[in-house]
């Protein structure tokens, strides 16, 4: 008997195997909307899958969403799971989402760092990086959000392989990063790139590698503020909005800086909620409230992208 998508508990954390298996059930349940595509393998040879939500057409403008690039931020892929199900189940009943999917595709990478994610389940719950070997060092892994070709090796990234923010030997050295870069480049028609992290309740736009304002700052800031207003409207969760450099600190080699410099104007990064007591150990009963409020902001951004073609 085929498993139904209803059998998964979205209010719980899951292993990589369960998440990958659930993707198949989602595809089975919504065969005319959802496909699962392998975009490559991780360092430890695990497949990396994107869920593609598409109603057809060729090379339509697309929106990218990735979750779980930092492996210990469990609420991020958990939110991704809920969101993927929301997109699939609301298509056809939510007029706005339906119109969006009638003109654009959505790509979701729910486990952007599969090796790290598995490692947090088996060896070290606090692991953040990839699991690649570093030549000449006993320390493993690279911070996959310091490894993109955007001010690579600049401020806010470490040269030490033992650091949690080690940028790696060269830009896109991490296969997990390169797989995404290759897909985005070969597709060539992404209009928005959204990376979901946890925690600290921020919605950010480029840049992180410099404190110089991006050309589209006013527009991105306005979108971000409107999006977080909607997010806040649900449970009162307070978000700050701004560019990475000013709102957190200079951080070079980040994904949304790369996507913006590649020409994807609507590039954003979320830092999801924390209750102020648990950090990366956000209790599972917070997953659905987190995902639900985040959806309001995500949807606002996606609708804006749909309505402002470029």
């Amino acid at each position, binding site marked *: 008997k085929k498993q139904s998508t209803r059998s998964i508990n979205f209010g*719980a954390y*899951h*292993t990589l195997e369960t998440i990958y298996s659930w993707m198949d059930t989602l595809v089975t349940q919504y065969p005319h909307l959802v496909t699962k595509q392998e975009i490559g393998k991780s360092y430890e040879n695990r497949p990396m899958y994107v869920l593609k939500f598409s109603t057809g057409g060729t090379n339509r403008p697309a929106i990218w969403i990735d979750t779980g690039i930092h492996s210990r931020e469990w609420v991020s892929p958990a939110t991704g799971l809920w969101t993927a199900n929301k997109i699939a189940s609301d298509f056809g009943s939510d007029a706005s989402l339906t119109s969006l999917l009638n003109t654009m595709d959505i790509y979701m990478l729910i486990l952007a760092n599969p090796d790290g994610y598995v490692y947090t389940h088996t060896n070290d719950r606090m692991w953040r990086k990839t699991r690649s070997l570093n030549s000449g060092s006993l320390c493993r892994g690279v911070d996959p959000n310091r490894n993109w070709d955007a001010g690579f090796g600049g401020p806010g990234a470490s040269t030490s392989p033992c650091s949690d923010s080690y940028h790696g030997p060269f830009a896109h050295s991490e296969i997990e990063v390169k797989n995404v870069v290759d897909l985005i480049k070969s597709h060539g028609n992404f209009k928005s790139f959204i990376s979901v992290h946890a925690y*600290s309740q921020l919605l950010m736009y480029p840049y992180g590698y410099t404190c110089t304002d991006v050309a589209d700052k006013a527009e991105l800031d306005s979108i971000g503020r409107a999006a977080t207003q909607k997010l806040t409207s649900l449970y009162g969760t307070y978000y700050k909005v701004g560019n990475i450099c000013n709102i957190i600190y200079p951080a070079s080699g980040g994904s949304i800086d790369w996507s913006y410099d590649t020409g994807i104007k609507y590039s954003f990064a979320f830092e999801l909620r924390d209750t*102020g007591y*648990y950090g990366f150990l956000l209790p*599972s009963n917070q997953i659905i409230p987190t995902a639900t409020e985040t959806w309001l902001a995500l949807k606002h951004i996606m609708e804006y992208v749909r309505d402002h073609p470029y």
Partner: protein
Amino acid sequence: ERTFVGDQVLRITLQSQEQLRVLQSLEHEEEWQLDFWLHPVSTDLPVDIRVPSSSLSTIKEFLLTHNIPFTVIIENLQELIDMEKTEMEENQK
């Protein structure tokens, strides 16, 4: 499997630029093996640090010496991890 018995997470709400500078200097302190969950970036945002049990008394003393107030948001990290694991196993069943 790595364990975190007795590790605590401290939350620090910075009140001055001087305190910010003091905490930023801690980021380069390797001996205490601090894990910054939220980095010291401004007085507007809190700082969360996972402190290994072996460094707890030293870091708390350091903060008190510099008049930097803190609260313990996680008393024993391993307890939370164990609870999370148990819940996941039950859910898997």
